[in-house]
């Protein structure tokens, strides 16, 4: 048995310790908001926060995630939506939407570390793939979220 703290809830899992956190979340716990896109840390669709740090869950063995505070897209909002989520909706960022959980989680972590990122900061820090090509709106939404947070 292995205990995970996800979105402030404790889960006990009977699972191989080397299983990536991604599959523990999706297949065992049922939190499917965290997506599978590549499995090799290339695309960022599986991004979650581990102790506040944006982490590609397809590369983190579940044993190493035990005892850490894990936040997934389902747990990002508090009483109201996170500023990034609000900005995402306002800019109508998603097309197919499949990459967007990861994009939102990556953007939230970026803003936590750098509340006023420039386009260059965004280009350097957001390396998630969006095959639909929503990048222009991702940039706009991050700036919008930054402006909202600073108000």
């Amino acid at each position, binding site marked *: 048995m292995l205990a995970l703290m996800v979105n402030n809830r404790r889960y006990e899992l009977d*699972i*191989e310790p080397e*299983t*990536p956190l991604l*599959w523990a979340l*999706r*297949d*065992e716990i*049922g*939190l*499917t*908001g*965290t*997506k*599978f*896109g*590549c*499995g*090799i840390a*290339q*695309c960022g*669709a599986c991004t979650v926060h581990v102790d506040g740090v944006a982490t590609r869950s397809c590369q983190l063995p579940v044993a190493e995630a035990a005892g850490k505070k894990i936040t*997934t*897209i*389902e747990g*990002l*909002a508090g009483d109201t*939506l996170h500023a990034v*989520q609000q900005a*995402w*909706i306002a800019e*109508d*960022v*998603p*097309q*197919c*939407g*499949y*990459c*967007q*959980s990861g994009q*939102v989680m990556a953007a939230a972590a970026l803003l936590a570390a750098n509340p006023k990122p420039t*386009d260059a900061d*965004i*280009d*350097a820090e*957001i*390396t*998630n*793939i*969006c*095959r*639909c*090509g*929503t*990048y*222009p*709106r*991702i*940039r706009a939404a991050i700036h919008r979220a930054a402006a909202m947070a600073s108000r």
Partner: protein
Amino acid sequence: MTKHLRDVPTSGIENLSRRYVLKGVAAAGGLVLAVRLLGISRTSADDASKFGAAGMPHGTVNDPRAFVSIAADGTVTIVCHRSEMGQGVRTGMPLILADELEADWSRVKVAQAPGDEVRFGNQDTDGSRSTRHFMKPMRQCGAAARMMLEAAAAKRWGVDVAEVEAKNHQVVHKTSGRALGYGDLAVEAGAMPVPASDKLRLKDPAQFRYIGKGGIDIIDGFDITTGRAKYGQDVRLPGQKYAVIARPPVLGGKVVSFDASQTMKVAGVAKVVQIAEPKIPSAFLPSGGVAVVADNTWAAIEGRKALKIEWDHGPHGAYESKSYRGALETTARQPGNVLRSEGDLDAGLAGAAKKIEAEYYIPHLAHATMEPPSATVRIRDGKVEAWTSVQSPQAAHDLLAKTLGVAPENVTVNVMLLGGGFGRKSKPDFAVEAGLVSKALDGAPVKVVWTREDDIHNGFYHTVSVERLEGGLDKDGKPVAWRHNSVAPTIMSIFAPDPKHEVPFEAGMGLVDMPFDVKNLRIENGAAEAHTKIGWFRSVSNVSHAFAIQSFAGELAAAAGQDQKEFILDLIGPARIVDAKNTTKDFWDYGENPDVYPIDTGRLRKVVELVTEKAGWGRKLPPGHGLGLAVHRSFVTYVAAVVEAAVDDKGNVTVPRVDIAIDCGPTVNPDRVRSQMEGAAIMGLSLAMKSEISFKDGKVLQSNFDDYEVLRINEAPGETHVHIAPHGYDVLPGGVGEPGVPPIAPALLNAIFVATGKRIRTLPLGDQLLKA
């Protein structure tokens, strides 16, 4: 037999436990307009029955009972019968209906139709057809439902129906001002006869509240940004198993033998199932191989790694991309089948003051949808139920019935959100795989998961092509001769013995319907054999044809010493309707009636003028920068692009700005037109700069996003500006999902030429400009 629409399972895009959305609505006490499935009327005009929507399997349905229900609380539920893959169809289709219905959009819910074309009309969500084919039937559904509500109110009040009017979710008695909400009228309206198509009062477009207005958010935006949205990969049924499949790595390959003893030792692995290989050509059937079934996806992946399989690679085991390119080039230099010939090409070339020739190469491409294919199937009591992300739910339905040997009425295909489609998910091979594995597990629910490697190795790839062009200019730089020989394996090779030639729907994608005004021209197509599965990729053959034709137009402009814009406007010639019907063999026109959707060079000129004006054509640029232009008609829509390229001293290329002008006729949701163009620019730049699928020993050499590269945000254009040519309803809507892609690559390459003097003729750009 009568059937209640409220009993139709919706897609499962809602929480799976709440699949019966319409039932939920009905259970809340309201009744539903959707009472019976009788008297479905079709919108085909007899004389034009082979064109447009009428030419598609199952045509269109304009019966409101298939698409609308209204609950007692006034909530209007509209069924979307097309698959959502990012194009915005789950917002756009219902929006059309809601507008005609005079519904308040904030009180509209959207339910997803399962695969059932008899009931809903054609559901093949491809070919950029949804708005083009269903704007009218959706308007008719909305108008019919509105008139039924009006009739119910008039009856209740005992007044003439002419005295009442539906407005913004209620029906008003004009003289007394009395009003009844839609929820109050739902039951009685459901009992009213459905007005005949010729009695429908459609709105005057000037009265539209939503159509073409903008400011409409996508219906799934909240669910997507909060992680609630459910895709095919996200399906979870009680007791579900997970499977991954080791497929033959070469087209037509077979399992000779396999040893699963190590696989069975992997914790969590439950079973190994062999899947028979199909006969080639295998259309949409799965490739066969060995499935590993486990308690979770990871265990299945680990179990597959431990499989030992001996393959017979079959007749395509020698497919190799470099030598294949050489063969295509050799073919392109010989005469091909003549598809169109005007004037006297040989005399035109012989008499030209300047002759230019060029060969362009574009490799295979993989769709690489962000969501790899996935399907879940359960078989209970002889009934097959699938949950999957398919562009063609009816094809998935039919193929499941056939391969599992069950009657079609015992198969249900629930359509989930698609994490990207781009043509890949028009092929329901993965749904059939899930059916076969579930059957081997006595019907237990099983999800087949494709990994990214599976997706890259076992796709239906965009064709590979060599496009050879020859042109002649007279002494004033005016083009007097144009020869194009296109050589590319055909999509038809997956369906029938390889015809080795482009078929009308491929040649009709920008090759034979080339609109330039050149007196002497010949368009040919040489033979090419397919050695892998070829499939539709967003905008299909337009990608290769536009890349070559629009690059060559840039080359001719340079040879003539003229500005690209002026040159291309001359090449297009005066505004006119191109007589393609009579000059080109099998003029396809995207399945439309060429009299209704002709090639209109006035519209081509207009998008060139619009995009160049907005992009500041001729503006002063920093050193190392260049502007490139391309224009292309596809899916009966006209798109022009101006790309600004910046090339640094080391040869690195970036794209500071893209402008795209689109004339797709009237729009439904302009913001989604914009987002499709933004995305098309990125996809066009990806294939122009980075992406390539190549083969060796019959196998794909790339595996994942580390070697099959697509654009990331740091490579995206600094600015993207989309310009929509304003339109009334003087023309019919054109396609939007695909037409943005074709002009992007040639516009970029024309820009690079201006910036550097170097002409790139092989895609992707890769490191061709990099200095050591």
